[in-house]
């Protein structure tokens, strides 16, 4: 009995040594999730910036009308340009993707063209209806327009959203993005590692030598899976750090808001590490079962996609389902617990429950994996 932990330790030491033999693989495994989450957040920031800017064009029948409109309205509507042209020109400017909205004006009607499939085009639509109303008065004559403007009541815009609501909306976006990207990168790493170290033993024909040792196979397997879990855990930490770095580029307001809530309380780090540990354990368990079942890496990779879908669905559940029980379920509890931690509502119980559930699942998976690993040999 005394030798039992020694076999696990020996297998872990051997597996870790193997990782040391391929440092590039280890660096890539850590760098990829870091860069993926960071670049994704940076990309989102860029996309969001794009959403705030749009451009429109107003086509008027004559040069004279065009100059007048430009002189009076350019300052009030800086996103719009003014040109002389016909209806076809207006339509073409939208079809070619050059403009988000195009307005064509005649004496009898105002036509607004836009492309509903483009987000910025829909955003430009509201402003284009304002400019169209003003133009109709301006083209009558300047006096009518001045009267119209003085008659119009002043518009005051008030944002009724609270800081709490804004933070919640942004956290939803952050958590779902982190969740999906992080889980997928962790799963990819787990898939590569389990295929190499578990299925690989059979493919490299080194499995027979292991079976012939008096050390029980299940202990060698546990050693291998624990190292795999640790590597997946490290890649998860790197991915989370990447997400935090990305957040700095993305929206400093969000980061400041979160930092203000969390304050100097470091408990969120502990919660985050526990969450990553539960996720890593579960991922390692799922992929070790798949890798043990097949003797060829090709088949393992093929069936690992199913494992990836399983984990990803778990991560997506809180997006569509809400309920108090959800935060106790491993993987699904990622977003609600991270959100709670960012709002300084420390929730350790759900994390510990999920960790317990994961440990049980891990144990069951190890028994199943060992059985499958040995069975395919016989």
């Amino acid at each position: 009995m005394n030798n039992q932990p020694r076999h696990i330790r020996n297998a872990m030491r051997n597996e870790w040594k193997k990782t040391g033999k391929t440092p590039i693989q280890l660096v890539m495994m850590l760098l990829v999730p870091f860069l993926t989450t960071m670049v994704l957040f940076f990309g989102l920031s860029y996309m969001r910036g794009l959403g705030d800017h749009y451009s429109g064009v107003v086509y008027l029948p004559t040069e004279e009308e065009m100059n007048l409109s430009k002189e009076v309205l350019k300052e009030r509507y800086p996103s719009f340009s003014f040109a002389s042209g016909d209806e076809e020109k207006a339509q073409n400017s939208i079809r070619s993707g050059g403009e988000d909205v195009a307005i064509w004006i005649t004496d009898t009607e105002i036509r607004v063209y836009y492309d509903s499939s483009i987000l910025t085009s829909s955003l430009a639509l509201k402003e284009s209806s304002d400019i169209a109303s003003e133009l109709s008065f301006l083209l009558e004559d300047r006096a009518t327009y001045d009267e119209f403007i003085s008659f119009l009541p002043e518009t005051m815009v008030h944002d009724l959203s609270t800081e709490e609501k804004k933070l919640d909306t942004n956290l939803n976006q952050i958590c779902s993005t982190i969740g999906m990207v992080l889980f997928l990168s962790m799963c990819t790493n787990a898939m590569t590692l389990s295929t190499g170290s578990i299925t690989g033993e059979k493919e490299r024909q080194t499995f027979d030598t292991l079976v012939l040792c008096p050390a029980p196979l299940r202990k060698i397997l546990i050693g291998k899976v624990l190292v795999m879990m640790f590597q997946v855990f490290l890649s998860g930490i790197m991915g989370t750090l990447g997400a935090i770095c990305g957040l700095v580029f993305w929206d400093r307001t969000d980061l400041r808001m979160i930092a203000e809530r969390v304050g100097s309380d470091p408990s969120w780090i502990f919660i985050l590490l526990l969450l990553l540990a539960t996720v890593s354990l579960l991922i390692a368990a799922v992929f070790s079962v798949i890798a043990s079942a097949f003797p060829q890496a090709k088949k393992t990779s093929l069936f690992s996609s199913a494992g990836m879908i399983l984990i990803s669905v778990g991560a997506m559940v809180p997006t569509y389902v809400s309920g108090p029980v959800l935060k106790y379920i491993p993987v699904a509890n990622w977003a609600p617990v991270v959100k709670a931690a960012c709002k300084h509502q420390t929730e350790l119980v759900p994390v510990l429950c999920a960790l317990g559930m994961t440990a049980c699942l891990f144990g069951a998976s190890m028994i199943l994996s060992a059985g499958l690993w040995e069975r395919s040999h016989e």
Partner: protein
Amino acid sequence: MITVSHLKKTFRRNKVEAVKDVSMEIRDGQIFALLGPNGAGKTTTMRMLSTLLLPTSGSICYDDVPLSEDTEAIRRRIAFLTNEIRLDGQFTPDELAEYYGRLYEMTPEKIAENKTKLFDYFGIAEFRNRRYETFSTGMKQKTSIAICLLHDPDTIIFDEPTNGLDILTQNLIEEYMLKLKEEGKCIILSTHILDLARRLSDRVGVIVDGKSVYVGEMAELASSQGVTTMEEAFLKLYKENHEEKAIVGKHKE
């Protein structure tokens, strides 16, 4: 001593009866050669003897202890070597010895002692810090033998160990087998090279179509069949026992 009685192995997946009825007795301090044509069931029998495969029926006893009763204890006593067995290519012979020595629950001192002895004999010592994957076929085979014998087993099962090797390496391995025999070890050698069996073995077993058709002294093989040479005896045994409709040779182990 190993006693094998009415051993049978049917592969469930492809429903092939690879071994139909094999019985033999393998004594300590002797080299037992298992002969047979390709696909006769030699490797399957060897894999069952080495605990890698479970027999469908029949029994294997190591010193009257059935193999199924204490597989772990028997694994401590045996070594199995085929030219199909590989070691992790990223590791050096030193690292491999350390890893497998620990799996065999050997002390660091014992690992170092046995490793030095084996590495020196097989000429691995100067390559002990080079990766296994960079070795030539012969050097790989010598390293595999050294690692398999590290735990000083009582019973050594060699499945065609000299296949594909040059004459120098073949000679080195053959001499080591004789050395092990002198130490009182029980050696089982599976081969289809009759000359190798004649030079090394004391007793012989012939398998044809999954059945043991002769088990006895090597020196008596020819006379027992009423012929003058071992080759003639082997051919006679084969012709008398080979079933024309047998599916031997088609199975995949």
